[in-house]
């Protein structure tokens, strides 16, 4: 299991760093709740907006 963990950790770490270096990063870290109209932690709209 140790070998699996070493491989998984390295692959995940390379993926995280690779994604960060190849993607835009336009400012402070945000949550979907920070955006206008968000009604839930995932950014879903309020039911009243759906009607």
């Amino acid at each position, binding site marked *: *299991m140790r070998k699996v*963990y070493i491989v998984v950790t390295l692959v995940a770490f390379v993926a995280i760093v690779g994604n960060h270096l190849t993607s*835009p990063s336009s400012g402070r870290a945000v949550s*979907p709740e920070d955006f206008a109209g968000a*009604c839930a932690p*995932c*950014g879903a709209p*309020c*039911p009243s907006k759906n009607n």
Partner: protein
Amino acid sequence: MSTATISAPSAAAPRADYLFLAISILATAVLVALVLLDGQRASAALIIGGFGLGVAFLKAEFSYTASWRRFLTRGEAGGLIGGLIVIAIAAVAVVPVAALWQGYGGAIAPLGPSLIIGALVFGVGMQLGNGCGSGTLYTVGGGSGRMLITLAFFVIGSVFGSLSLPAFLAMGGLDPILASDYLGPWGGLIATLASLAVAAAIMITVARKRGANYKPSRNYIIGGIVIGLLCVFVFFAGGHPWSVTFGYTVWGAKIFQALGYDFSQAAFWQWAGPKHALAESVLSDTSSLTDFGIIFGAMAAAAATKRYANAPWPPLGSLLAAAVGGLLMGWGARLGFGCNIGAFVGGVASGSLHGWVWFAMALVGSLIGIRLRPLFGLSRE
């Protein structure tokens, strides 16, 4: 005194696993350096806060899943009350600050079929997966191969959940109900703390009736206080209560996208927040930052005391339960607006009614999940 007597304690003394200790600390340092290079001190604080949470959860062996199971099978309420300590401490900061200070907000969510079905399914999944959102993270970090399977399927399930959520939201529901909207910041805080006291009283009553223990263990009291304080730290660093599972959804969507899946027609991924998260660096998402910190914090805490990830793989049935549980939790977390942390701890600590609805439904789901455990060769206890 014989040599054997002298050497016995040192042979039994815990030895650090320096390889994994170094990996965990170096990985955390690199992530902190990357966000600091972008000038993001708050992001660095979230990674460090997550690291602290990983250490605290692992050292206290703080498990929502096991606590709920002990309550449902034996009536023991100590673990559940330990969880309420976390929420009470977080609420003291979250309810008034979210209501009074611009730039801060609580964890809110609509009430409706999506929340009810999602929480119920999540409850089933957490008993099969053997961990909730936070539990999966810290046990993966702690070196459990089984929980690697749970996490992988949790991530996949949450992507499916993101595709299902808009249809469930279309069934209707009520806008979020927040105590501070009706009672003001301090009245909302009093109402939130009162709701926690009522919940604790009900749990103690049930435990007493079943002749079970209702006092939290020392680990759960200290762990609950430390985790509660770290929740406050994460709230001030990120501007919202700590959440876990949105990060999983983003990781999964990024992997699916890399494999060629097009999310441009998926309604969920056209909402402003998810669209931004999918396009931007994974280190721009608050929940991912704390998630990474928790994994590496738990890894460091586990590797500091013993040989890391040294247990054999569990039986196939247990791995199957991990996969099914992970899928259900992932799907349920998206429909139910989070897990024990984002929906229950964050929701109740924000004074949002959805937190209590989530708890009630997830508890029912857990009861179902416990009954299903023997099908996979797992004990009901």
